[in-house]
Each structure stands twice: as structure tokens, then as C-alpha cells.
């Protein structure tokens, strides 16, 4: 099988362009980054429903809430650091509190932003967005899923935060994948340990599972593309069989997928959870692949984590 390397943001742009035809209520907004977030694809075909706000992200969220309160389905995009960080309180009050129909779709999440450095690497956005009531948080595993998720969140009535990457990376889902908010996908079945990935790290979990299989360890892999609401059923069913987990995300270990899974398991089915993510640190400039190694997000790190989680389970 040939590996397709695709950028999620390009598929977000494609999905928006399709929505411009099928959905007259969709309005797309951007803050001087349309060529990067790919909302430019919507602007090309539907300039009359594209709203440029300039470098004024907080204003973008406020205006988005007003549009949504007046019947529009709004997609507002910028880089993940600005979307989630700069506008946090605007999102909380103007969008989430009144439960308005605004989709905040950010691109350039995580350390794979690379050369721009720490100021541009959002490693806290899942945490920030997940803590706001009424907010749905989505982190697709590849470009195809980003496309399907864009369509799905357009159908959902309420606030959503979706994080997408900048770079091209291999697809893991079928081209015609369906997306249901709140439903995880079991990518591979196994009985010894559950590897729970989100975003680009789903691919790393699959590669780690291959390597573990050659050592006689059977790993289950779950693509947790909705982080909130968390798919409790799938998680508890899997952990019931494996008894231990690894979480893997391009995000801080504080407050992200790892925390969400731990919160659930602590109360429902106490089991070891070893977290792959950045360890309470800022990133830095550099080549994304090298950064993944330096910051402990590479496939060997997932393999180690799986073994540690299994050891913790044995210790009981």
C-alpha cells in the first residue's frame, strides 16, 4: 500500500468549498491567515460569505457569535495558539455560554509547526478548550478525517473547537471515512495494552503496535478523534480487556487527551495510563521530525510507554 501524505488544512479547505454550495447559512471568517488555514478555498468560491477581520482574533470571535445569534453557521479560523489562547475568554462568554453555533477551526497545532518556534506551537489548546462547558473538542487523525469532521460539525448545532495540523503526514483512515462526533474508532484490536492516540499520533500508535507485535505484544489502537465528549463506551470496553493504556498526543501531558482518559479511568476503572505528550515545556524551532524525537513524541517513545504501562499493570 502506498502511503498518502496529506495536509489536514487542505482538506478543511476542500470541505468548506463544498459547504459553500450545499449550505447557504455557512459563513467563514479568518484573521489574515486564510492562505495558511485554507479558508481561502471558501473565499475563492463564495467571497460574499467570507469575512476577513484583519489581525484581530478576539474581534473575530465576538463577530462570529453575533452572526451565529442571527442564524448563521460560522467557521472561524486562525492558528491554534491564537484561536485557543488569545480568544479564550471571548470564546467562553460570547460563544460557549450562550451555546452558539460557532466552529472554531484552528490550524498549525502542536510542535510540528516546526521552524516558527514555541510562540506558534499550540501545546495547550485541547486543555484550554476542553475545560469550557458546552464545548465539543475534535482532533482528527488525518486529512480524510478532517474533511469528514468539517462536514459533521457543520451539521451539529453548537460550539466546536477543532484542531488541525500544518504539515503533510500519512493518512490512516479510508478516503470515504464517516465522522460521528463523540465516537472513537478502534483501528486495530489487541489484548495486552490499549494505545489511545489523537491527531498525528494515531499513526505513531499504529506503527508502535506493529513493532510491539513483532515482540509478541498485542496492542489495541484507538483513534480518539473526539476528545470531548469522550467515547466512554469504547474506552471502558477496551480497558476492560487490556487493563492498561497509553495516551499519545501532540500536546502537553497537562489537560489534554491523557488527562481526559485518566479522569474517566480513575473513577470508572482504575488502570495505569502512561502519557505521551510534551512534559510541561514549551517547544522550540526546528525540523518537526527531530522535534518529535527530542520532545518524546516519536514511535520508540510510544513503544516504551506501552511496556511501562504493562509493567505497572503487572505490579497491580
Amino acid at each position, binding site marked *: 500500500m502506498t502511503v498518502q501524505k496529506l495536509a489536514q488544512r487542505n482538506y478543511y479547505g476542500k470541505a468548506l468549498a463544498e459547504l459553500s454550495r450545499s449550505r447557504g447559512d455557512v459563513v467563514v471568517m479568518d484573521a*489574515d491567515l486564510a492562505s495558511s488555514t485554507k479558508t481561502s478555498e471558501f473565499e475563492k468560491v463564495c467571497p460574499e460569505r467570507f469575512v476577513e477581520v*484583519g*489581525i*484581530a482574533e478576539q474581534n473575530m470571535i465576538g463577530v462570529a457569535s453575533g452572526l451565529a445569534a442571527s442564524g448563521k453557521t460560522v467557521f472561524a479560523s486562525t492558528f491554534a495558539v491564537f484561536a485557543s489562547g488569545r480568544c479564550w475568554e471571548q470564546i467562553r462568554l460570547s460563544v460557549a455560554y450562550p451555546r452558539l453555533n460557532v466552529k472554531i477551526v484552528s490550524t498549525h497545532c502542536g510542535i510540528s509547526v516546526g*521552524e516558527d*518556534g*514555541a*510562540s506558534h506551537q499550540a501545546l495547550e489548546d485541547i486543555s484550554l478548550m476542553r475545560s469550557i462547558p458546552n464545548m465539543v473538542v475534535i482532533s482528527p487523525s488525518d486529512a480524510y478525517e478532517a474533511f469528514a469532521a468539517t462536514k459533521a460539525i457543520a451539521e451539529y448545532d453548537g460550539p466546536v473547537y477543532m484542531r488541525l495540523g500544518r504539515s503533510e503526514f500519512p493518512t490512516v483512515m479510508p478516503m470515504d471515512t464517516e465522522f460521528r462526533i463523540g465516537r472513537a474508532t478502534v483501528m486495530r484490536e489487541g489484548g495486552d495494552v490499549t494505545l489511545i492516540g489523537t491527531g498525528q499520533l494515531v499513526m505513531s500508535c499504529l506503527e508502535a503496535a506493529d513493532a510491539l507485535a513483532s515482540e509478541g505484544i498485542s496492542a489495541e489502537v484507538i483513534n480518539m478523534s473526539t476528545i470531548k465528549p469522550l467515547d466512554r463506551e469504547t474506552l471502558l470496553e477496551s480497558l476492560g480487556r487490556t487493563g492498561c493504556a497509553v495516551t499519545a498526543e501532540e500536546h502537553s501531558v497537562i489537560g489534554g487527551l491523557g488527562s481526559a482518559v485518566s479522569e474517566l479511568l480513575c473513577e470508572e476503572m482504575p488502570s495505569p495510563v502512561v502519557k505521551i505528550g510534551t512534559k510541561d515545556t514549551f517547544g522550540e*524551532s526546528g525540523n518537526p521530525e527531530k522535534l518529535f524525537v527530542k520532545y518524546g513524541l516519536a514511535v520508540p517513545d510510544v513503544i516504551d510507554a506501552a511496556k511501562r504501562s504493562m509493567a505497572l499493570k503487572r505490579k497491580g
Partner: protein
Amino acid sequence: MGYSSEDLSRIANRLRVHVIEMTSAAGSGHPGGSLSSADLLAVLYFRVMRHDPKSPDWADRDRFILSKGHVAPLLYAALAESGYLPVEELMTLRKMGSRLQGHPVRGKAPGVEMSTGSLGQGLSMSCGIALAGKMDCKDYRVFCLLGDGEMQSGQNWEAAMFASHYRLDNLTAIVDRNRLQITGDTERCMSLGALDEKFRSFGWDVETVNGHDIDALTSALEKRSDGPRAIIMNTIKGKCVSFMENNAGFHGKACNCEETARALKELKEGL
């Protein structure tokens, strides 16, 4: 003391050469807005600012805050030419482990005052540094460079109100009015209108200059007012490289091999 205006023009050109070489070696970065502000940085670092590259933490130094942090290559070039950094280090820009991060980081490379890169925050930081100068009875000045697109960010206007309220006469904001941002023409993206009038209505003393005229920049920067000063600096984005001038395409993209050669040839002819 003693660089002639011709010297400063030559230094500015050298900074431009560094910017092209650094961003091309890194394969990414922001050359366009670096070239438009190069004359300003030459005048600040080699004529107007009181500073000592051998003691970057000198308490009485004038401060330069790069609010438009994406033009870090230009800042690093000016720091290297001034003696804060070895010139060879410039080639480590944006590489893992380098002190020269894609956007400036306080405490990493000597001479970098604040961490920036998220637009619209540097003027507030500068207000704080200027206010501390007042509290400590120090006579240092604070210079803050902003992009024109960056002025769309509301925080700047909160800072503008603050600066005149606290009469920060030690603060000078310089806006690089190159009329371009990522999306293109600033007036089409989100019109800024009369920036000078806006600043004036916030209680600032305002001057508009040609940002590529060394003497005009000098006199605007040396002048003092009894409140904060804003200098609207009309410039050309990509200045001094024909195919980059007024070209938004080179905002956040490095030259390829062939373009690099052409750019360096044009710049070196100007040296």
C-alpha cells in the same frame, strides 16, 4: 560617535544581505518585513540608541522591543553586526537548539529584550518597561517596532491609551507602514485609515517619515516630546530587492536558490 549617513545605508544593506542569507539557509522565515525595517534598525543600533553590546543587561541601556516578532532575522542581524552575537551564528536561525529561534525569545540570545511573535503585544510590554524607567528615575528610552497590519490588533490601542495617560515620554513607537500584510494590501484586508490621526487622538505626538531616509529617521527618532511619540514610517516591503519589493508573496517565504542568488547580487551591487 561617528557613522555617516552613507555608512548607515551600507550597514542597512548588510543587514539585508544577512536577512536573505539567513532565511534562505533556514528555508523559511519572513524576509519582506525585515527588508522594510532594515534602515530603521541601522539607525537605531548604530546611531540613536544608547547601548553596549558587551553588557547587554546594562540597567541604563535604551531598549528595543520588536513587537512584529516575525522579523526576528533582522533583529538578529542587527545584534550580530553590533557585536552581541558572532556573525557566523546567524546561520543557525530556526535550527533545533539555536539561540536564534524563529521568533525572538527573551533570555536566549543576548540583546533580545522580550519574547514576541504573537502580534499586538509588544507595545504593552514597552509601556511596562517605560513605566519602570519612570519609577526608577532612569533616563533610558524605549523603542517599539510594530507592523502596520499589526495595528489592527486591539491591544495596541489599549496600550496607546495607557502610554498617554501615564505620559510615557520615554516611549517611541515606530510603525512600519509598508501597506502589506499576509493577505495583501492592508486597506483591503482591514483598513487602517489615517494611523497618524488615530495615534494623535490617543494623545500621542506623531510624525510621518520616509522609512528609507536615514537622516529623516534620525531626526524623528532623536526628537523628544512631553508624551509618547509615534513615528509612522512609510516603507517598501522587500526594499532593495527588485522582485521582492511590494510583493506580499515574500512576507513569510524564503527565497529559493535562484532567487537568493539574484537578491544577493542586487544587494551587493548596492553595498
